[in-house]
């Protein structure tokens, strides 16, 4: 394991940014999100959760796919260049990284989304262990160990230093460069001890989190129609404003729209995040198959908890980051959905 004393973090960031783009949590007008490092940026490693998960480093909210130019009747298509420069995503949390594994199942499945694939290929992820998790967190339910995130590099921020452990070839290469530059030094026994201590403390807190024992029993492919037809949805969706907050802060939501932007000289074909909560999500010239908010609300959770696992060897499209829990304007969320179905089950078995 390597380390760097806290005071030298700006030098570390400067050195990384000199070689490639560096994205990390930056505070702008009071809110922390992943952004491009600059000397002026206010780096914020203290905030537990960025508002957005950081998936936009790999799957931007809007990105141009190609530009169409017209010359009389002729059409010319100029595809957008793919990411061909390395970049470092510093400070993602265990849940965020797990979120990418979910996105990989979608975008790297045949036919590969080359835009995403190029970013995955060139992205080096330095994931930071959590300390002091929130009561909204439930990543352990989805098999994430937030005390020791799995990524190219895992880092721990202690009171005095950032401890650094390469976990992949990509991570080793970055570590070697930074060590050669004299930025990273060998961690001492005391540092290792400190990190182990931090891990133990965090894991102990995780055990106490209120959603820690959330049961996913019954959320599998066989229950598809039973869950789909449940009268509970009619109750659960009522407070939904049909906004896209949950989907846009979610590390695993990947639905997108494809649209044209007229530049004046041509047409830019771009894709942008879309939300299954939006009333026009499934609107097409010949009709709409999800016309009510109940149907749209149901779709989001059926997708995350049943459809996605059915298509992806049981992997859920939720990583327990708890962003929706914290951000929904109406305090609706996936936990409430899971709990409501569990309670229904208990009621059925009980007095009723």
């Amino acid at each position, binding site marked *: 394991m390597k380390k760097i004393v806290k005071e030298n973090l700006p030098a570390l960031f400067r050195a990384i940014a000199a070689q490639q783009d560096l994205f990390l949590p930056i505070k702008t*007008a009071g809110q922390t999100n992943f952004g491009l490092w600059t000397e002026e940026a206010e780096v914020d490693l203290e905030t537990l959760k960025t508002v957005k998960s950081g998936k936009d480093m790999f799957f931007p909210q809007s990105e141009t796919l190609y530009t169409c130019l017209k010359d009389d009747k002729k059409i010319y298509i100029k595809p957008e260049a793919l990411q061909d420069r390395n970049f470092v995503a510093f400070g993602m949390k265990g849940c965020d990284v797990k979120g990418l594994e979910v996105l990989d199942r979608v975008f790297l499945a045949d036919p590969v989304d080359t835009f995403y694939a190029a970013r995955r290929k060139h992205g080096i992820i330095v994931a930071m262990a959590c300390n002091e998790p929130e009561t909204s967190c439930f990543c352990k339910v989805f098999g994430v160990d937030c005390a020791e995130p799995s990524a190219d590099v895992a880092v721990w921020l202690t009171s005095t230093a950032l401890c650094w452990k390469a976990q992949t070839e990509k991570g080793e290469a970055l570590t070697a460069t930074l060590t050669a530059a004299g930025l990273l030094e060998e961690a001492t026994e005391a540092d290792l001890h400190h990190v182990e201590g931090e891990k133990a403390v965090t894991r102990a807190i995780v055990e106490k989190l209120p959603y820690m024992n959330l049961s996913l029993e019954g959320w599998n492919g066989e229950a598809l129609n039973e869950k789909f037809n449940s009268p509970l949805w009619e109750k659960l969706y009522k*407070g939904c404003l049909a906004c896209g907050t949950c989907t*846009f802060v979610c590390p695993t939501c990947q639905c997108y729209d494809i649209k044209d932007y007229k530049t004046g000289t041509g047409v830019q074909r771009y894709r942008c995040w879309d939300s299954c909560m939006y009333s026009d999500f499934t609107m097409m010239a010949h009709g709409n198959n999800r016309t009510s908010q109940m149907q749209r609300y149901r779709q989001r959770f059926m997708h995350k908890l049943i459809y996605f696992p059915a298509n992806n060897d049981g992997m859920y499209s939720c990583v327990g980051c708890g962003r929706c829990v914290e951000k929904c304007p109406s305090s609706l969320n996936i936990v409430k959905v899971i709990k409501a179905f569990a309670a229904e089950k208990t009621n059925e078995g009980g007095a009723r």
Partner: protein
Amino acid sequence: MQRLIDRAKELLADGTVVRVLGWKAGDMGYNPEPAMFDNAAELRNFVYDGFCGANLSKFMIEASKLEGKTLVFLKPCDTYSFNQLIKEHRVDRDKAYIIGVGCQGKLSMEKIKSMGVKAIESVSGADAFDAAEELTFETLYGEKTVAYKDAMLQRCHVCKGKEHMIYDELLGESKDTKDADRFAEVERIEAMSPEERFAFFQAELSKCIRCNACRNVCPACSCRKCIFDGTKYDSAQKANTTSFEEKMFHIIRAFHVAGRCTDCGECSRVCPQGIPLHLFNRKFIKDIETFYGEYQAGADTDSKGPLTSYTFDDVEPSIVAERG
């Protein structure tokens, strides 16, 4: 709170209403959700406390389309929105039985968290009609206390008052929570140089993720189809293709609700990025008051709005231009 549940049960039982629009307790003591209760049994989950900031007026648009009367609980500031919706023929007064509930200031989880309270397991002091001076939080990292006032939503600091503008009956005690000047923030921004002002809004609006929470929660945004949802324009509501688009979305929205916005503050409450969106609306309200005299949208159901009526005394456009 039990008073509200009991009264709701009575009104359901005697057939005055067929459903109840209120708040349902969440699983954490600080995350209630707007909810519809169809019978007395469901009311066991009813809650009303300091965390019930959601303005239920807009939900009445949908409830007005249902058979029978809906009992709705409205806080004093929510009644302005309801009146405005009546004025715009978006809700049906006859389909609503309004209990004006007392309000002692509603709480902001964002604010509470910004004061270093995290991993909350339980909270006390947030009682609706007997709010404590101090909120006490049991957290995974120890007990924390926060002054109730410091934890309030921004809008409660400029509270419009304890009076309900429309109701069938009243329940619960209110408290005056106003401790700031409504236009102080606007004046601070007006005093900025154009460059500073631009930088301020640039920083704030660049955070926008186009989730549309502000629009969807806004009682004044009641268009059946929002212009930003149209496919005919390049202004896709969810794309942040350019920073210009983000600004345009919020500025157009502010213009569209000008004169109709009651300053309910829901836009700022729901923004996941903490953008103080109310500032746009409040600037318009301030200007309207300057040019046309004092006016509070939603204070009644029949007065003409300053921007939808014309008098010979109206201010000349040139004055607006000069003042900038």
